[in-house]
């Protein structure tokens, strides 16, 4: 018998009616309509990933939509749960829409170890049960509701996943006593150095962590799963991940040294700091199981992309198995344009680029650009803008140039390569916020440099990704200070940076070349700091015969213009005599000279975007 009026089958309906007649006098108080979230139909929602504006949010920090799931929250300590949840994201989709966001990257959704060493798993990177949702955020119905409501307004949802490790779910029983020990030995004096040994998180040993007692070593240390149901620190799920052979068991990484532009052995095989146990991702069974687990999440909640954590900590061979398996699955269920981009926290283009293309991920977080351009040029002014030009050249050389089979495609169905799909960012949850490190000096507004960096982010080639709170001028330092509660801002849409991002998303939306166009650098300078015309940089984005000229000045000090010391002027692709107009700021006319050059002068920390007069209302 069923008491709803949404019975799943005709048979159910008949039974329901019979019972209702028997009940006779007793009313049917109400029914629920869950049909929308009970069954899933995966959908294709993306036309061209280059059109998207990604907004990264930590669910626990974005908005608290349901106090009923505020378990173990502590608003006085950012290393603890704060109470944000999927309902909160649902409640603020309008806010994101108005900001101009088209894709939201949400922090991991799976069940985590609740707390470890007095820090909570609010971020989602301490997986325990890869099949279950994190109850602090909601349940699967709520997650589906979020994805459905985002899709209904054309917004995509990106799932953050981790394949490198799970949470700290076991310890190495080095001394064989069955309990996790943490010992400090030595007196700290000459010849008696203090030494700390922890069975939770011992230092890397290439042989694998060895059992060891006062009598010496005795072979590989057994691992023991921890049973702490009160904090959900339990053996992993699915249960197949409880096989000790599925872990490298070599202990914590102590050296991140790369070799020949590739991660070192420890990076691949060591436990991630915090005792996060490294999966043996070279094992075919592990590869298949991880693909199965995360493909199920696509089925369950209709995600549009994966953001993949700790990309460089996992072997190329894994990605060459995992990524095609995901693409094959998406193809089988009719989901087109599924996108996978990874996070390799490294400044080495060759290393990061080596994980793109070749049947691996479709794209990567552009960390090398973050270090070489965002920090060194835009934030610090310690390098000339020729460094940006150099970075763009490296992009062409080091990153995947050939689209992955069944990977992302353009609107016309042409495969898109990593070089076109790099995910650009200023900051994220693992590094200090831009404003923590850079406040512009007077007479500029304190956020002038941030706006200048955002200008670059939204006009350069690739997909812009904004870290939540940027629009509210958050300025937290390293983790967890950079993981503030967004609701403390009151979701202020009058914040100057919110408005600035609104302008930029609008600009990007109106002018297709800024989304999909090729990029040609038109002006760069070696001058830096207080030197004349330092900080100026110009490029064109061109698509379908239409071009947009972007000229920026990253100097805090002075106006700069596109003129060389010897008098050389900036050559552009527009025909001589073309009348251009600035569409980002005061409508400033500019005419291309007879020699095909222009001189553009830009105030400090400002940007001008020129298009031909005929295109001033937009290039669709």
């Amino acid at each position, binding site marked *: 018998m069923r008491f709803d009026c949404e019975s799943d089958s005709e048979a159910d309906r008949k039974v329901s009616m019979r019972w209702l007649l028997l009940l006779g*006098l*007793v*009313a*049917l*108080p*109400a029914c629920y309509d869950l049909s929308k979230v009970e069954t899933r139909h995966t959908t294709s929602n993306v036309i061209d990933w280059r059109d998207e504006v990604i907004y990264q949010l930590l669910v626990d920090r974005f908005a608290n939509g349901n106090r009923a799931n505020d378990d173990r929250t502590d608003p006085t300590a950012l290393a603890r749960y704060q109470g944000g949840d999927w309902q909160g994201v649902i409640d603020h989709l309008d806010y994101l829409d108005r900001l101009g966001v088209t894709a939201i990257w949400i922090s991991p959704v799976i069940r985590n170890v609740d707390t470890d060493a007095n820090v909570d798993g609010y971020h989602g990177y301490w997986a325990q049960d890869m099949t279950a949702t994190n109850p602090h955020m909601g349940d699967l*119905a709520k997650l589906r509701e979020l994805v459905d409501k985002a899709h209904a307004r054309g917004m995509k949802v990106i799932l953050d996943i981790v394949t490198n490790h799970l949470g700290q779910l076991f310890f190495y029983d080095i001394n064989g006593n069955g309990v996790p020990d943490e010992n400090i030995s030595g007196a700290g004096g000459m010849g008696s150095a203090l030494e700390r040994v922890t069975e939770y998180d011992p230092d890397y040993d290439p042989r694998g962590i060895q059992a060891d007692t006062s009598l010496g070593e005795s072979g590989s240390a057994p691992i023991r799963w921890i049973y702490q149901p009160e904090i959900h620190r339990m053996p992993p799920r699915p249960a197949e991940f409880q096989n000790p052979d599925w872990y490298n068991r070599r202990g914590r990484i102590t050296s991140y040294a790369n070799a020949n532009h590739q991660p070192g052995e420890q990076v691949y095989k060591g436990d991630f700091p915090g005792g996060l146990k490294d999966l043996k991702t070279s094992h075919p069974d592990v590869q298949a199981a991880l693909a199965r687990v995360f493909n199920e999440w696509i089925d369950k909640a209709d995600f549009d992309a994966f953001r993949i954590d700790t990309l460089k900590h996992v072997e190329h061979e894994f990605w060459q198995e995992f990524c095609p398996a995901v693409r094959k699955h998406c193809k089988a269920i009719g989901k087109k344009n599924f996108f996978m981009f990874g996070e390799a926290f490294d400044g080495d283009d060759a290393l990061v680029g080596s994980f793109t293309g070749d049947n691996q991920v479709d794209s990567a977080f552009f960390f090398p650009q973050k270090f070489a351009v965002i920090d060194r040029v835009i934030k610090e002014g310690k390098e000339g803008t020729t460094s940006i030009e150099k970075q763009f050249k490296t992009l062409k050389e080091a990153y995947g140039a050939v689209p992955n089979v069944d990977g992302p495609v353009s609107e016309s169905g042409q495969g898109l390569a990593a070089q076109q799909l790099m995910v650009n960012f200023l900051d994220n949850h693992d590094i200090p916020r831009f404003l923590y490190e850079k406040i512009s000096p007077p007479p500029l507004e304190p956020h002038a440099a941030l706006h200048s960096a955002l200008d670059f982010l939204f006009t350069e080639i690739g997909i812009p990704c904004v870290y939540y709170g940027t629009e509210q001028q958050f300025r937290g330092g390293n983790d967890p200070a950079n993981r503030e509660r967004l609701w403390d801002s009151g979701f202020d849409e009058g914040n100057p940076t919110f408005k600035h991002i609104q302008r930029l998303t609008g600009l990007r939306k109106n002018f297709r070349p800024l989304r999909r166009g090729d990029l040609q650098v038109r002006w760069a300078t070696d001058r830096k700091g207080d030197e004349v015309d330092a900080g100026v940089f110009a490029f064109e984005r061109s698509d379908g015969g239409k071009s947009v000229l972007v000229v920026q000045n990253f100097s805090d000090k002075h106006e700069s213009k596109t003129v060389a010391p010897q008098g050389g002027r900036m050559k552009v692709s527009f025909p001589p005599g073309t009348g251009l107009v600035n569409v980002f700021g005061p409508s400033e006319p500019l005419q291309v000279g007879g020699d095909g050059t222009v001189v553009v002068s830009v105030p400090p920390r400002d940007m001008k975007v020129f298009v031909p007069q005929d295109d001033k209302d937009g290039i669709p």
Partner: protein
Amino acid sequence: MGPRALALIALLPAVALAAEPLDDSLPPPVADEGAAAATPKPALPAQSGFSFGSYGRVGVGIDGAAHEGYAVNVVSRGSRLEKAPYLELYLFYTGALTDGARWRVVVTPAFAGDLFHYSGSFASRLALRNAYVETVDLGVAGLRLWAGSRMYRGDDVYLFDWWPLDSLNTVGGGAGWRGGRWDVAIHAGLNRIDDAFALQSVTVPARGLGAPGQALAVDRPRGVASFKLTCLLGPPGATAGAKASLYGEFHGVGEGDRPIVAQMRTEKLPADYGFVLGAQLGGWTGSHRFVNLFVRYAGGLAAYGEATAPAAVDNSGRATAARDFSTALSLNWESSFFGVMGGATVRNFTDAAPGQYNPANYVEGIIAARPHLYFGRYFGLAAELSYQSRKYGGFDPLLDRRLTPQVLRASLMPYVSPTGTGTYSRPQIYLLATVSRLNDDARVVRFEPGDLRYSTATVLYFGIGAEWWFESLYAL
């Protein structure tokens, strides 16, 4: 047409089917934890003196694998057959005045928990369920006045051990008047449940040397006011008739500041409110034949009951959105050789937490019948058949789907009752054999994975027990 409109239409035929009587001639009182009684109400003694009454049940059983027997209900109020032992003692003194007025003092110790001969533990849980004084006809005929700690209850659905209306536990007072075909009562009281929602203290340093002290930080007693108006629809004293009742409650708690000492801050607890609106239609035709139909609609704080803190609050910290909409049916029919008790309820509960797909929301229902065959004056055979189901409003976090637990039950109860035939005759000594069939969702809901009962789809219960009541105190 919405479900609530359907509900109202479904109510209409019930009006014709009568209700439980107001007089003293029909089924004897029924009581339980929270005590209580269905009508009729025995008359007070005409003379002064002590009196004693009791409700109790004691039983024991095993399942099909020789584990301790257990109940398998998946709804809020399921079958009462396998309920744990419970005992109430009614101690009261009645004073009769010369003008016909009376007064009495009522004290009700109640016992629950382990039985010594079962657990070997020399301990029991004792509660004082009643401690009040009441007057009747003092100065005004039909006037009743009372004050003290009182359970305040009306008619029940016996098979589910449930009082849909006027089931209150407060310390306070009230007044009532009964005359002609009218009976009206009001009651107001307080409770301050032992829960952080209502009461919190913080440890503070000693003023000088010595142990730290306690400072009261949250003190939010709940005020509960209720009224009930009953109209007898037939001629008073007739063997057949009907009655209609309207019922309401108002609940309120004040605001507070909850200290979170470890975080050196306080959290605002806003004032909150709740209400209950209810109605009862009943009729009887004499000879222990009656039917009662109840409708109850509760909101806010009151949706969780008067002695329970809200399980969740909305983002303003209130339980405003919580709703509990229930309907219930209770009936009894008897002849010289056969009797049957019946009951059915449907309940729609909506939690205060926001969200369309809240797993704390549910719709549930149960229907049950207990026919009896009498073999002579003292012996009988009863059987109970029931079906219950609940549909949750959100997904189960383990299975990631919405669960719909369902249980089909059948019981046989050979019994002996020294007070004669009748479905309500007590005491009753009985043997009990029950088979319950659980669907997969019912197993998941009832037990955690790993529980030795988790995989049992057919649950057996073989037991022996007794139930009694006499001289109920709910009789003024």
